[in-house]
């Protein structure tokens, strides 16, 4: 399922008005923490149903194939049909929520789509019509991804400026919990239905899926409660209805830098080797490693289980070190190794799957924020929309391909195919690394040198290595070739900062002139794509605020 980690970065954090409502009890006061915790509870369960049901086919792979008399490629159509609507809806979801329905109605509508989709899916099994099941997955897909956008919008609306990161983290973990629970209990639900009905077959399958649909009803209920609570909060606090803030302009696509396209390739190449693999994983572990169905379900969900606690930790690590592209490279290489272990060895697959789970979490933390490094803020919505759209396109196509490869060529070739996809991602990462090296420097022109300690010259023209995905750093200024190189040569080291527009005090060292150091600097990406740098120098500070502009 497409990641939503990135959404957090789409929203600016502004504190909303703190209305005076001390008269109400804490539970009823929309500003009070207790009340917001209740809201958070409903928010988390809002997405539970869709995440639970998304992987229903993976959890019941063997049963679906047997009861509906499918082959694997037909089975994988269930995943493809989920992805198809999202190739387009990634652009539309935010728009629909902001302009057409509003967040409250929109959420209910999307939850309804999820619910109805799952019911149609189950109904298809009950009446033994596979096309109906596919249609159900299509309807389910219409709601699924957009519901995640709605969930994030609610989170921002209620928690911005407060515990927003924590809330995003919790929602994400809840999503993983949904997937894990599904993977591990749907088999037992099926078995239970089999005992109750006294038979296997499509009717048993349909009943089990219908029981799965109750989680969607739960989500729909949460959507209604949230709508009510939000409306009530609006009335009491006089606040506005939340907006996703996503602005999608398709004409921005032509301005996307090459780096962004490489990021797209990484995204597609990587995720198509994860989700379709999980979709087919259960039977793979049974047939290749002789696992029992229960054990196979558990190991198949290990990626989600690991991802729930590992994401925040790894996210923190990536944030602290800032070398996103190195982390992405690590994640891609370890995933490749994990897939190769699964493909070419009979080693205990727990080892490979744990590595896969860790690297999957690492990639999610490192890859999605990188988009913000290479496109200006006003294009972020379009870039993320496009990324998810391409990802869904890839998932749809590769799901179908994976099914037919398995049918005709077996698991080794399928795994080799997944390895090839990851190799494609690896090529893109390596390309991105070097491209970043070559293009990552930005020349800041016309830096005014106002200070006057040992330096006599003014108006030196300096160039500054600036933007790297690996890290932010400034490398030695070199002077205008027309002037003596003795004029001004110094270097700065800057701690990593994470996205254009943010500022961070820099620990700086001037290599040429130890007396001078940069105490503060700030780089802003302007709407026209150029950069503006503000550098504050010591000991000349605070007078010497240097500004310069650079074309990317």
């Amino acid at each position, binding site marked *: 399922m497409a990641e939503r980690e990135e959404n957090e970065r789409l929203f600016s954090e502004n504190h909303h008005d703190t209305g005076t409502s001390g008269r109400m009890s804490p539970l009823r006061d929309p500003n009070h923490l207790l009340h917001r915790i209740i809201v958070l509870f409903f928010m988390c369960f809002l997405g539970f149903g869709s995440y639970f049901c998304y992987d229903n086919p993976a959890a019941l792979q063997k049963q679906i*194939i*047997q009861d509906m*008399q*499918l*082959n*694997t490629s037909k089975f994988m159509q269930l995943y493809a049909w989920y992805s198809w609507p999202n190739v387009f809806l990634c652009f539309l979801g935010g728009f629909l929520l902001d302009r057409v329905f509003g967040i409250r109605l929109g959420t209910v509508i999307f939850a309804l789509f999820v619910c109805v989709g799952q019911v149609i899916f189950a109904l298809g099994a009950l009446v033994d019509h596979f096309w109906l099941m596919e249609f159900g997955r299509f309807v389910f897909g219409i709601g699924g991804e957009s519901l995640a956008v709605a969930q994030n919008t609610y989170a921002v609306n209620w928690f911005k400026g407060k515990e927003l990161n924590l809330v995003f983290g919790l929602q994400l973990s809840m999503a993983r919990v949904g997937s894990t629970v599904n993977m591990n209990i749907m088999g037992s639900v099926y078995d239970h239905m089999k005992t109750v009905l006294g038979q*296997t077959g499509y009717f048993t399958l349909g009943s089990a899926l219908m029981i799965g649909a109750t989680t969607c009803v739960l989500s729909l209920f949460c959507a209604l409660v949230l709508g009510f609570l939000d409306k009530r909060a609006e009335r009491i606090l006089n606040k506005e209805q939340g907006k996703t803030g996503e602005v999608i302009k398709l004409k921005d696509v032509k301005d996307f830098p090459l780096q962004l396209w490489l990021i797209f390739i990484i995204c597609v190449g990587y995720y198509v080797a994860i989700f379709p693999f999980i979709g087919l994983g259960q*039977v793979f572990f049974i*047939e*290749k490693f002789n696992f029992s169905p229960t054990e196979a379900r558990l190991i198949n969900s290990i990626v989600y289980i690991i991802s729930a606690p590992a994401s925040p930790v790894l996210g923190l690590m990536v944030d602290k070190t800032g070398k996103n592209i*190195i982390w992405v490279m690590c994640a891609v*290489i370890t995933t490749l*190794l994990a897939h*190769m272990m699964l*493909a*070419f*060895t*009979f080693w205990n697959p727990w080892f490979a799957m744990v590595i896969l789970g860790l690297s999957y979490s690492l990639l999610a933390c490192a890859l999605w924020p990188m988009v913000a490094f290479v496109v200006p803020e006003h294009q972020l919505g379009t870039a993320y929309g496009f990324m998810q759209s391409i990802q869904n396109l890839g998932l749809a196509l590769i799901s179908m391909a994976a099914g037919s490869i*398995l*049918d*005709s*060529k*077996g*698991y*080794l*070739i399928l795994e*080799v*195919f997944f*390895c*090839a996809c990851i*190799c*494609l991602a*690896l*090529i893109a*990462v*390596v*390309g991105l*690394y*070097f491209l970043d*090296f070559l293009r990552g420097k930005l020349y800041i022109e016309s830096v005014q040198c106002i200070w006057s300690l*040992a*330096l006599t010259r003014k108006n030196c023209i300096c160039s500054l290595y600036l933007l790297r995905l*690996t890290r932010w750093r400034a490398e*030695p200024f*070199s002077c205008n070739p027309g002037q003596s*190189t*003795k*004029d*001004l*040569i*110094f*270097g700065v080291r800057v701690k990593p900062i994470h996205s254009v527009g943010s500022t961070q005090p820099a620990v700086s060292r001037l*290599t*040429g*002139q130890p007396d001078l150091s940069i105490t503060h600097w700030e780089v802003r990406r302007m709407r026209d794509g150029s950069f503006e740098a503000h550098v504050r120098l010591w000991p000349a500070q605070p007078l010497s605020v240097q500004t310069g502009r650079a074309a990317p």
Partner: protein
Amino acid sequence: MSGSNARSFIPLLGVLLGVFLCASGFMGSGVPFRRKVTLELNPGLKLSNAAPPEFDLLHVRALGENDTLHFFLCSKGAPAVLLVHTNSTESSVQVDWPTFVILNSTGGLRVVPESSVQYSRALVFTRLLEYDDVNNTAEPQDFLPPYDLKDFAWSDLNSTVDYTFHAALLCGKDHSSTFRNGSFCLDFSAFESGGREEAWPSLLHSANSSQLHVWLEGVTPRANQSRFSLELQMVSEVGFQDRVDVQRFIDDEYTPSIFQVSQWVSSPVNSSSVRGFMQWKPIAYRKRVPMLEDATPCRNSQPVPLAQPPPSGLISAYFTHNPVTSGINISFSLAEDPFYGSTKFLSWTVLIGMGTPPSDSFSPLVIGIMAVGLGTPLALIVVGGVYVCIRKRRDQQLGYQPIN
């Protein structure tokens, strides 16, 4: 790019290179080896002598550079395949037809000169077992009365033998009503060289082996939840011992979802060298055209020594000196798999040969994809790394001078 980054590539390169070398190390080296295969039906039978026998004897002569393999397929009694390996290119077959046609006769079939015979072994299909799997556990028990293959009426080999493709088809029926539309068939093929058949399980065969494709079609099950087992017996000379090995292999490209191969090998007592084998993949197909969704696993019991040789005319005619017999059961399907009645079809394939069993190797497709997939980023890293190092050095040479 800093120097430390450049250095960090080196272990990475090592790992990728190592993996690549490992992968390419799996490549097998196939030595092309050919035999000249000729088929002969009922060798030495002169029709004028007597009435035509009620069975056929197919003799396959596979002539190598300095040895000869003789295969026999015969439907007298239980159907059997006999393999005789001689170290002479001149060895020939002598059938004493008047003796051979007599029920329970011995010594009707000889391969001469007898001193050239290195190894002989026969595989006999003795019984077809059916059981009602009430609990759907696929544990063979509560057997229904077995179908005895020696009592089957076998088809005429004359009409099915294919002299060009070295194949012959033998089909048999029981006399009971359940076999009215049903048949049990053995499709025999001999091979001039190594290769594999298009249709799954696509067993890898060599010129030292022949293949039997066995299927059971259209039989009316005698219970609601019928499953089948096949009883096989192996006959060899005294001084050989049998065991069933299971070898795992990670390339399931030719038989999707099957990662192992079972081989029933015979080796001389007190020696581990394998002289002959029966090899199969533990998979059967429930439809005539094998598809993954119609695959059903099969299991085998361990070989059990038997006191009596199987009731096959070929065995009694060839093995005259108290041969050693052992038997196994191959049972089809696992718990929860569909029952025989759902498709009324089961097919299974086995190789019979001499020497060590052929073993699979990675296909060029796998090696090619992995080589390109790993090679391209590696090449990119090397080229890029060299470029970065050069640039780095150039930058350092320029140097920065201190400010006065």
